[in-house]
């Protein structure tokens, strides 16, 4: 797999692609998606040989964010992809692309109430049937944070506050990784 070629294909699907430092964050790339593009992105990742590490959600303002984590066996590349749910709290399922997403999506539905559209069996998995409306991991109004407040802040005094942090200047994910893995 050529990561630069794959990154080129991400361009069409994503709004933000940034290189992040593996030794600091545990991932090599951070990709922000529109919720309509999630399926295309997942299909691309499967084709390139990535496996789905995990799928989860975070309740932030302005909307619940669904986070997908992928890793690649040969290049050891780790990718974090994220997408906000739409206004109805829905996002397309990827369980027909990655079989393993099935339970992750059911669990996320239990904890956050997100509806994964076209999921084959979106029934409670971890919680009991009667607790379907409990949504235990949703934050209360007072504890809800803006999405920028839970991201790593830019290093050193930033010239102006930005919504998305820039990668650190010394970040060289490829170089750091190859050194670690030798």
């Amino acid at each position, binding site marked *: 797999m050529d990561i630069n070629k794959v990154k080129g294909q991400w361009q069409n699907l994503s709004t933000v692609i940034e290189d992040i430092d593996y030794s600091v964050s545990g991932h090599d790339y951070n990709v922000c998606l529109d919720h309509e593009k999630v399926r295309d992105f997942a299909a691309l990742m499967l084709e390139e040989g990535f496996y789905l590490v995990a799928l989860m959600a975070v309740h932030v303002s302005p909307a619940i964010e669904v986070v997908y984590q992928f890793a690649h066996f040969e290049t050891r590349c780790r990718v974090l992809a994220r997408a906000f749910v739409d206004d109805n709290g829905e996002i397309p399922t990827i369980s027909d692309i990655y079989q393993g997403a099935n339970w992750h999506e059911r669990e996320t539905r239990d904890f956050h109430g997100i509806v994964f559209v076209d999921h084959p069996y979106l029934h*409670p998995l971890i919680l009991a049937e009667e607790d379907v409306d409990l949504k235990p991991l949703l934050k209360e109004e007072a504890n809800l944070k803006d999405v920028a407040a839970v991201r790593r802040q830019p290093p050193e005094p930033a010239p102006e506050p930005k919504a998305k942090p820039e990668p650190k200047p010394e970040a060289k994910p490829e170089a750091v990784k190859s050194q670690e893995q030798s």
Partner: protein
Amino acid sequence: MAANTETMTINMGPQHPSTHGVLQLILELDGEIVVKATPHIGFLHRGIEKLSEHRTYHQTIPLTDRLDYLAPMSNNLGYVLAVEKLLGITDEIPERVQRIRVIMTELTRLKSHLVWLACHALDIGAMTVFLYCFRERECITDIYEKVSGARMTSNYFRVGGLADDLPDGLEGEIRTFVESMPAHVEEYEGLLTGNRIWQKRTIGVGEISAEAAIDIGITGPSLRASGVDWDLRRDNPYCGYEDYDFDVPVRTGCDTFDRYRVRLDEMRQSVRIILQALDKLKPGPILADCPKIVLPPKQDVVNNIESLIHHFKIVTEGFKTEPGEIYQGIEAPKGELGFYLIADGSAYPFRMKIRPPSFVNLQGLPQMVEGKLLADVIAVIGTLDIVLGEIDR
């Protein structure tokens, strides 16, 4: 006259002895053939992810013991590494701490694999192996008790170090035990590998191809027995694993028998790692020099006022972290155990997601048993090595 057949649906679990905990399987049977298997989980859900949002970082460590309760130190390790990464103090962990962590987590791998082998063999009908494995496991539980005071829920690692140093003489005890271990593994192999009944019950049972395993996201020994060479200790090293010389056993049979052989080989590799770590173990501090984060040693707390103040502040208020998100995966005995932490700058995590290996691996079960015999379901549950504590969390 044509026979009038219909399928029968039965419940297996959650109180069945060979479902290894509170796993419920709804099996649709056509005679002895499984037509459809549907796992039901969640009976042991304790809301650990939610609880952690209301606890300081130190207070969550005992909760992680209760994930995979057969390998508590692996869970401790994954969690403390994640918090250390979030704090950016990974490079400040003293060498002695790294070595002891490796020794204890590899002993944990042995402990977990011993329980797996014991129960797996018992389910299939080999009683003797169970007794032999628990004999060795007892030695590891004793070591656990000496270092942490608890035989199962160890709660031994701390953010930035360890709860306490190894007691006097324990290094020698660990070495004696570990050196005896290869002979014991030979003994288990002698009982099982060439055994015709064992082979009949495991070869070709519960097959899963590498493609299907990747599609589901299976990790750990189950993946390596399907021919995929992937071990986080080597591929995404943590805790100084790059310093050790060990092999990653890989086999291509994709079946229960090869998963059994991969795990036995892993036990031999763990022994190698522990012996190397014991050779490299030198005296030194067991806590990082980060007084705002690390709990001071108990001796100092009772003897000087600064340590008492630090202790009081850290216990009552916790420590604050920078906002940010990190992921830390480790190679737990069952596969990739991941902790994904999101911090908002307070003393509590904003969100903690646990990626339990058993949860993902169990999703492969229907594919492995459908179209096969009912008796194979028992073998497949055993070979997946699931622990409901971490599946339900």
